[in-house]
């Protein structure tokens, strides 16, 4: 086991009330340690603060309390060391697919010839050969998200953050994308933090599933997934997989019930 790369240290977030209303406690003080090369999925019902937590790690939002350390250094704002893929399509519409993937490299001031090599290798990895000169609008949602993953990876971040990247895709495409992402991870072992509300997706991808509770959000369970790699979609029908699924379903159900009683 390698060292801790990301340390979330009693991070909380309270949003001020809208027009004098009561403040929203989106995230209770939360602790999480992420080991290098881990694939962690954060699973939780809608509105439990998953995006809030991920945005704080990305540096797009500030915690109300606590801090996040990346390789021992406190995160003060967004940076190229944390790549992010959003739930909405965020490719730059005025850039072609190749230019989108090269965006971060250009920001670093990398010379063009070097950029081209990296872009070519990532277009290949996400299966977008032949679409380099298309504009995002000309691509399907799945292809756009693949480009977004390539764009984040091309930057070679220390950690990859994904916020329900496949949430808007149909089931078939979603399954294919999961395999694609997992394939890349199995080869490159990049540290990944992946937010989802889909239990199957959470188990299939993860080496560790972190379950979050409903409002106010906090970590409720932390379950390691010992399924072997490389994983194939057929794994979703194995008894081990089903057992994990049953366990997580129970956790979440329990959660939802408790939240219900509390209100």
């Amino acid at each position: 086991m390698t060292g801790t790369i990301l340390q979330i240290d009693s991070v909380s977030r309270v949003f001020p009330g809208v027009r004098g209303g009561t403040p929203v406690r989106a995230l209770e003080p939360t602790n999480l340690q992420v080991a290098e090369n881990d694939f962690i999925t954060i699973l939780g019902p809608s509105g439990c603060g998953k995006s809030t937590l991920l945005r704080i790690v990305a540096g797009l939002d500030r915690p109300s309390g606590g801090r996040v350390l990346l390789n021992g250094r406190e995160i003060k704002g967004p940076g190229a060391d944390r790549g992010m893929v959003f739930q909405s399509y965020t490719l730059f519409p005025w850039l072609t697919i190749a230019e989108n993937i090269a965006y971060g490299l250009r920001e670093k001031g990398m010379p063009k010839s070097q950029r081209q090599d990296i872009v070519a290798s990532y277009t290949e990895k996400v299966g977008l050969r032949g679409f380099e000169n298309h504009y995002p609008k000309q691509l399907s949602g799945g292809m756009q998200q693949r480009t977004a993953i390539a764009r984040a990876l091309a930057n070679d971040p220390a950690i990859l953050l994904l916020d329900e990247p496949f949430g808007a895709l149909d089931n078939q495409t979603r399954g294919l994308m999961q395999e694609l992402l997992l394939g890349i991870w199995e080869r490159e072992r990049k540290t990944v933090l992946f937010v989802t509300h889909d239990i199957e997706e959470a188990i299939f991808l993860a080496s560790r599933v972190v379950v979050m509770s409903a409002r106010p959000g906090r970590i409720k369970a932390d379950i390691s997934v010992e399924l072997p790699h490389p994983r194939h979609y057929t794994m979703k029908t194995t008894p081990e997989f089903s057992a994990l699924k049953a366990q997580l379903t129970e956790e979440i159900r329990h959660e939802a019930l408790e939240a219900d009683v509390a209100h």
Partner: protein
Amino acid sequence: MPRPLEPVSQGTRVVLGISFFVLFFAAWAFATLGGFVSRTFLADPITMVQDGWLLLTRFGFMSDIGVTVWRVVGGFVLASVIAVPLGIMMGAYKSFEAFLEPFVSFARYLPASAFVPLLILWAGIGEMQKLLVIFIGSVFQIILMVAVAVGNTRRDLVEAAYTLGSSDRSVVRRVLIPANAPEIAEILRLVLGWAWTYVIVAELIGSSSGIGHMIIDSQALLATGQMIFGIIVIGVIGLISDFLFKALNRSLFPWRLA
């Protein structure tokens, strides 16, 4: 009956567009040639064309047109060069916006035509005064509209740029500006149309050349044919410049249509 929002073919479009012009001219010809309107007040289309031909061939109206176009373009370019960067700054930096927005909003409602007498006092009746009228009429509009466009840039695109390592400056240069370039071009096209109305006002007073000056001259002679010809020329030039602007935007921003 066509369905709401149902598109029509390119051919039908052109035919429909032209047929209204034909209808318009027919109604005009009917009213004037049929003797329903006195010739003193409204020339018929044939007289208008004859007068226009005389203007162009004998009275050097071409150079008047040239002068007016030059004034519009000059004042408009001057305004754009100053207003577009200011608008981008205002849209991008909220403190800058808080500083300038109230004044610009106020200045926007100052009618450019009301400045004509004052500008004559300040700048005489030379070219400078004409350019300034157009400048004042355009600059505040462009600033405000560009600022609004830039301020409405999709936040998630800006956030994506930050997570890819963009600095604050490069977010402005590589996201805010390219994201809004087509809209800024659209704003310029719109304001250029308004600039045409200011230039004529500027030329109606204290001018010795230009389309507006010709119209005022013709009024003294009760030459309604010439006046109408002048007005139509303005319309035609506006149509052409609009068309060119649209074609330019299309070729500059192919990703918009992609």
